[in-house]
């Protein structure tokens, strides 16, 4: 049976508080000997998800709830806000594009979810008018 650790964390939607969540994720990943690159990818995915919650959820309690579940071979992170939910155009980034720049492929905004999907092995989003939960899994790779 694998050794499993669960950590629950609630952070306020204050500037830089996403770093506290990222640090917790990195400590758990290091505990299970994830490599340095995976640890950085996990931190970035946590940061982007927390920033999305802070910027777009319109949550009245101004809190982000994070559940970490780490086993010997993977880290699962669930990040929940109690905001108004997200729409399809937010999910694909088109609502957040802003004014077009010189190069259409250099989109300035709305890339957080793209980054999360590229860095994590599995990503799931559940959203309703009562809030949003973004869950992702990073699997440990053999060295």
């Amino acid at each position, binding site marked *: 049976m694998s050794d499993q650790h669960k950590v629950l964390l609630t952070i306020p939607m204050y500037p830089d*508080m996403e770093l506290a969540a990222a640090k917790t994720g990195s400590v758990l990943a290091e505990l299970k000997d994830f490599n340095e690159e995976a640890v950085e*990818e996990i931190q970035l995915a946590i940061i982007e998800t927390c920033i999305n919650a802070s910027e777009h959820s319109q949550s009245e309690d101004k809190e982000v709830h994070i559940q970490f579940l780490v086993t010997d071979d993977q880290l699962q992170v669930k990040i929940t806000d109690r905001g108004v939910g997200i729409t399809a155009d937010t999910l694909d980034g088109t609502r957040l594009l802003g004014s077009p720049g010189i190069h259409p*492929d*250099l989109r300035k905004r709305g890339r957080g979810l793209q980054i999360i999907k590229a*860095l994590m092995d599995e990503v799931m989003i559940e959203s309703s008018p009562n809030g949003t939960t973004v869950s992702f899994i990073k699997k440990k790779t053999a060295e």
Partner: protein
Amino acid sequence: MLNKFDIQIREAQEHAVIETTGYLNDALGEQLSEKAQELIQGGCVQLVINLEKTTLINSIGISILIEIIESLEEREGTLNFCGLSPTQERTFRMMAIAKYAGIFPDEESAVANL
């Protein structure tokens, strides 16, 4: 404050190196943007941004880097990055930054390729 950051500028005759330390978010990004715009407005359009001491870069920080790239393009300047971690480099390539700015392993090669 969780994020302690710093910006150092090393100016040479025809180029400048901006070195950032800390978490590149909106706060550090805005300071970086101000410094870069000062250099660009002053006529220095050959820039290197050294990210070796920059632990994490979020998508807001990346959007500010894109604005610097666009400012330099308007003045036919060049921007090279150096000191990126493998994850940062992968993110830059995913976001098309690598198409419009150079990525080099160290400051010496980034300056040499301006």
